[in-house]
């Protein structure tokens, strides 16, 4: 064993810090090397100082008060959570990030909200005018579905005749309210899908979401 290794091992003296093999090799080295043996004696001073400090247990004043504080803390856990959040937002980086996030969220919400609101308004207009003019529920549903399809086409930027055919096929199953809700779901999800940027992915997602939402096989 060389002196460098021996000196490292000398600092790791406690029971579970050295293997039996390391212990034996170190003992042999110390019997042969005066310098390392002297260092070993220096370390005795370290051990004595440490023993004294480790033996000095910190004194906990008012332990009952600490227990009471903990018990009160667990009862007002929600308040503590809020305080932690407030504390967290005192950090400048998080403050800036949170502000940016809020601005982006407001922007997205506004865009989404007005877009959908506009689409629904248009859909409602078609529904009402059809209702007044014909009163035929099948015709009404077809118009609604057609309008929904137009909205999807506008949002997604492509026209899917297959989707249109299937949607009309299922339109008879639904009431006016359901159709309106259906259109709303289409608009809502179309917006989300639009953000994926991939048209085939958009189509698959749209079909699967609407199928799941309305429990139909499109």
């Amino acid at each position, binding site marked *: 064993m060389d002196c460098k290794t021996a000196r490292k091992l000398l600092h790791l003296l406690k029971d579970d810090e050295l293997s039996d093999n390391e212990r034996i090799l170190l003992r042999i080295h110390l019997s042969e090397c005066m310098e390392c043996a002297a260092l070993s004696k220096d370390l005795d*001073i370290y051990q004595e100082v440490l023993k004294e400090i480790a033996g000095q247990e910190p004194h*906990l004043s008012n332990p009952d008060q600490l227990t009471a504080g903990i018990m009160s803390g667990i009862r007002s856990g929600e308040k503590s959570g809020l305080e932690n959040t407030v504390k967290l937002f005192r950090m400048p980086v998080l403050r800036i990030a949170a502000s940016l996030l809020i601005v982006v969220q407001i922007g997205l919400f506004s865009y989404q909200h007005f877009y959908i609101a506009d689409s629904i308004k248009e859909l409602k207009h078609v529904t009402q005018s059809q209702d007044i003019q014909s009163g035929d529920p099948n015709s009404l549903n077809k118009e609604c579905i057609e309008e929904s399809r137009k909205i999807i086409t506008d949002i997604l930027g492509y026209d899917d005749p297959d989707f249109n055919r299937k949607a009309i096929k299922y339109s008879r199953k639904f009431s006016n309210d359901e159709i309106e809700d259906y259109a709303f779901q289409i608009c809502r999800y179309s917006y989300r899908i639009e953000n994926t940027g991939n048209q085939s992915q958009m189509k698959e997602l749209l079909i699967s979401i609407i199928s799941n939402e309305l429990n139909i096989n499109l």
Partner: protein
Amino acid sequence: MEAGNSKILQPNPDIIHKCRKRDEKAFKVLVEQFQSYAFSLAFRLVLSEDDAKDIVQESFIRIWRHISHYNSNVLFTTWLYKIVSNLCYDNLKSNKRRNNAKLQLADNQALLTSGDSASRNFENKDLIRKIRQLSKNLTIKQRMVFVLRDLHELPVKEVSKILILSEGAVKTNLYLARLNIRKRILVSEKNGGY
């Protein structure tokens, strides 16, 4: 039930069971049994009685919140010390972020704050001075390994679990910490004792 070392303990399984059922009385028993161990570790790490108490309080609140997920195969003290150490780490790290002037001011304030407590208990003040002097130049990791192993006297295996470090990494940090501290002790001895 005690597991060899006086600071490695496991509460009665019945207490844990009751705590999982949100029994506040049982939790109080758990707190009374373990808060002094948690305080002892936190105090030695952050060197402030008030900060240590805050850390102990937050640790037990977290334990209450997550006790349903506690794995009884892990020693309770390992879990407790892990939470305490993490909070102490954050405390030490945030202290380190301050600039030197602020740090000096905070240290003085900490001593003054602790001094209030120390007027009630001189020993705490003396202990702060000694540990501060010894661990002055250690990195946070070295300091944590040193306190857990040499002052809180936990086995290397426990330290490794608490700090989520390999046993080899614990030993390396321990070696570097002891090397540094030994040099400080020798200098102090030459100057007439530390």
